[in-house]
């Protein structure tokens, strides 16, 4: 088994050229935005540098760095899980009274014009959606992205984010009703 030489560990320049993109890709699909992903990658290199002396050479350098990044991502999930009182989501249904579970009148879906279907390919529409996702509370945006855009399994998201499946569906439901309304207001109503 090839032993990692000291220069390998003490020369972080090669880390960035060899692994930065790989780590960044791993992070970006799991967190909400580019800046967070960059920070996580940077922190991973820091942590790697700090604990380089503990590296036993059992795993490849890349595997070792990924394991550090994974811990960083879990920490990040914990942080947004515990964030309280952040931008709250608008309710779409009455929460109590006679009309409990019914649509709130001004949130009722409006008809989109017949051309709507043709715009699916539009780049600007995708950007409009991106903008709408960005307006969601961080945790909602994250869960929606993981599930819908990155195609993670429900079970996997629940495990990583430490939430229950029913919790996940409530979040998806609120995110989707919110996104529908946002696209309607910003795009299809025009």
């Amino acid at each position: 088994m090839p032993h990692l030489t000291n220069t390998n560990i003490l020369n972080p320049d090669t880390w960035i050229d060899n692994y930065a993109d790989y780590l960044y890709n791993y992070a970006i699909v799991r967190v909400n935005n580019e800046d967070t992903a960059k920070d996580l990658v940077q922190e991973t290199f820091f942590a790697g540098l700090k604990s380089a002396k503990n590296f036993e050479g059992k795993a490849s350098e890349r595997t070792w760095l990924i394991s550090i990044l994974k811990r960083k991502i879990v920490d990040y999930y914990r942080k947004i899980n515990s964030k309280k009182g952040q931008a709250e989501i608008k309710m779409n249904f009455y929460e109590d009274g006679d009309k409990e579970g019914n649509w709130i009148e001004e949130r009722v879906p409006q008809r989109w014009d017949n051309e709507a279907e043709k715009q699916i390919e539009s780049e600007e529409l995708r950007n409009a959606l991106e903008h709408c996702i960005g307006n969601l509370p961080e945790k909602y945006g994250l869960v929606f992205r993981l599930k819908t855009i990155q195609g993670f399994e429900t079970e996997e998201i629940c495990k990583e984010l430490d939430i229950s499946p029913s919790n996940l569906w409530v979040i998806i439901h609120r995110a989707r009703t919110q996104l529908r309304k946002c696209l309607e207001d910003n795009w299809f109503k025009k």
Partner: protein
Amino acid sequence: MFKWFSITCDEATTICDKSQYGEASFSEKIKLKLHFLLCKVCALYTKQNSMLTKICQKKTAQNNCLTKEDKQAMKKVLQEKNM
């Protein structure tokens, strides 16, 4: 009997959201179809929701790279730390 089938719009749209990922159960789908008979709003929601799914699918999976500048900046910070 009717009560068993009857769901609110909130519940109906939740089932609709689940079915976007193919994760609604058989009985949920029946309840949803029956709800559509009574509620055109939720039927419309479902149509638009499918469109949201389609737009998202178009967004999927581009490969992301860091820019040269990003990497340069990282190197610089890391070197400083390593001094």
